[in-house]
């Protein structure tokens, strides 16, 4: 007796057609992704519905530029602006991925005038520029210009991932210039920084050799290594996409994160050497031995309130590293917040990112204004 098809189990013909439709859409996606190229410009980001919070470039310096995100119309601007420091890996727009998945948009709605320091795409001429240049010249200038424009003597500082490490260096160098510090998935003590600590073990990994040979460390080299921090997720990526290809909401989120993940930038060689050797290999920042602008940095010198946000399932900046921050910042009140999230979902994955954004804005709101000593 032949089986009668029911509504719950499609017949083989329907199933074949369904799989063919999925395969067609999957191949279309791969073709489009490949046509998008290695780097996204502003037009491409806009066409993908990404980085849509209104912004303009205030000024540029070398490869860097200071982006300004005006407070939306109808929202009362808060007196103290906020400067975001991004990492040297990938691009800044993870913090403004899509409407509803954007830290910048969320802070803007709460009245914070956000500025983002975009390191840009370094070229061979930036190979010999170190953190002394990027933090003591470029970032210091950005901070001073923002303060002058808003007629304040302090601002809020926000750092994401390695950008948080840089932000902490800035705050330790000039503690009197910051009203509050937000560290999002930021390691400051690198003794237990997970797989990256193992990969950069000083017994066999020589960052100076890579920096010397390449000048600027190619984006392809970095892009080739990061996916293998989580081989399971990397291998399952294609199948996950295929299984959910007919789900438009999933596809939009996947596309934007995929675009960001493949939009890599080269790493200035000297900065690469300084970060890997001085931070990952010698843990100089935590030991108080890291020098910036000819002066040793003491994280204990940071006096502004600090919010330390990290994710439980983060394999890039693991909680074992981020959780040690409060112990290093002995001169300020540090608030630790650990979320059940990953390195990326803490900033762009709903619903957790909404909680993180709201709690960050609440924390900033609660900081009482400091007076000049």
């Amino acid at each position: 007796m032949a089986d009668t098809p029911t509504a719950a189990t499609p017949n083989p013909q329907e199933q074949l057609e369904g799989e063919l439709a999925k395969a067609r859409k999957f191949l279309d996606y791969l073709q489009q992704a490949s046509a998008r190229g290695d780097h996204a410009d502003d037009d491409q980001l806009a066409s993908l519905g990404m980085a849509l919070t209104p912004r303009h470039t205030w000024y540029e310096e070398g490869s860097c530029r200071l982006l300004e995100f005006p407070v939306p119309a109808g929202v009362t601007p808060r007196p103290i602006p906020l400067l975001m420091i991004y990492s040297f890996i990938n691009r800044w727009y993870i913090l403004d991925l899509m409407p509803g998945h954007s830290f910048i948009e969320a802070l803007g709605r709460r009245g914070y005038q956000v500025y983002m320091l975009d390191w840009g795409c370094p070229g061979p001429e930036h190979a010999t520029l170190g953190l002394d240049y990027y933090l003591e010249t470029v970032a210091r200038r950005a901070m001073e210009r923002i303060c002058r424009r808003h007629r304040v003597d302090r601002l809020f500082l926000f750092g994401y991932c390695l950008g948080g490490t840089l932000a902490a260096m800035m705050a330790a160098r000039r503690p009197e210039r910051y009203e509050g510090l937000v560290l999002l998935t930021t390691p400051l003590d690198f003794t237990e920084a997970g797989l990256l600590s193992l990969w950069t073990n000083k017994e066999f990994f020589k960052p100076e050799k890579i920096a010397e040979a390449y000048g600027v460390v190619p984006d392809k080299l970095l892009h080739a290594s990061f996916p293998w921090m989580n081989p399971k997720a990397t291998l399952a990526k294609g199948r996950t996409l295929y299984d959910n290809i007919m789900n438009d909401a999933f596809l939009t989120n996947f596309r934007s994160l995929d675009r960001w993940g493949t939009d890599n930038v080269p790493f200035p060689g000297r900065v690469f050497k300084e970060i890997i050797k001085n931070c990952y290999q010698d843990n100089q920042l935590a030991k108080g031995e890291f020098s910036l602008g000819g002066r040793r940095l003491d994280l204990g010198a940071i006096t502004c309130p600090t919010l330390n946000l990290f994710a439980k399932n983060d394999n890039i900046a693991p909680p074992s590293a981020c959780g040690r921050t409060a112990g290093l910042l002995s001169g300020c009140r540090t608030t630790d917040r650990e979320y059940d999230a990953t390195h990326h979902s803490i900033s762009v994955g709903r619903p957790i990112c909404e909680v993180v954004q709201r709690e960050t804005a609440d924390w900033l709101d609660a900081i009482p204004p400091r007076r000049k000593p």
Partner: protein
Amino acid sequence: MTNPFDFGRTMLQAWEKTTAETLEKLTHDEAFLKQMSQALGSSLDVKKQMETHAEKYLQSINMPTRSDLDRILTYLQRIEARLLDLEDRLDAAAAPAPTPEAATSPAPAPTAATHPQPAKAAPRPMPAKGTPSPKKATARSRARK
């Protein structure tokens, strides 16, 4: 009979699982990482040698090398930084000092129109010879003061 799509998916998942386990072990294995680093180091040595030879050859035929270009770009970088420093000094001299009150009262909403400083905006028309640019004139008049 098993559905061929389900069968394919099961096979793929099994492959993913075993490959991920192998890669997981490799990425945590110090001996493997050491060998990878050595291989990378050797390829970097070869790259460096080739570049040194190319550089020497270009020098021998009086052609500019990559190092020459990098040097020029670095000079430009320094000049740009100095110009921005000067711009900052002029701004700081013109701007009122921040007051404690300013930090508590809302700052005026800055817009691009009130702070027109796009460093790489549309190119300005070249002034006629002998005509000082408005920026130069301002700098001079401020210097006189």
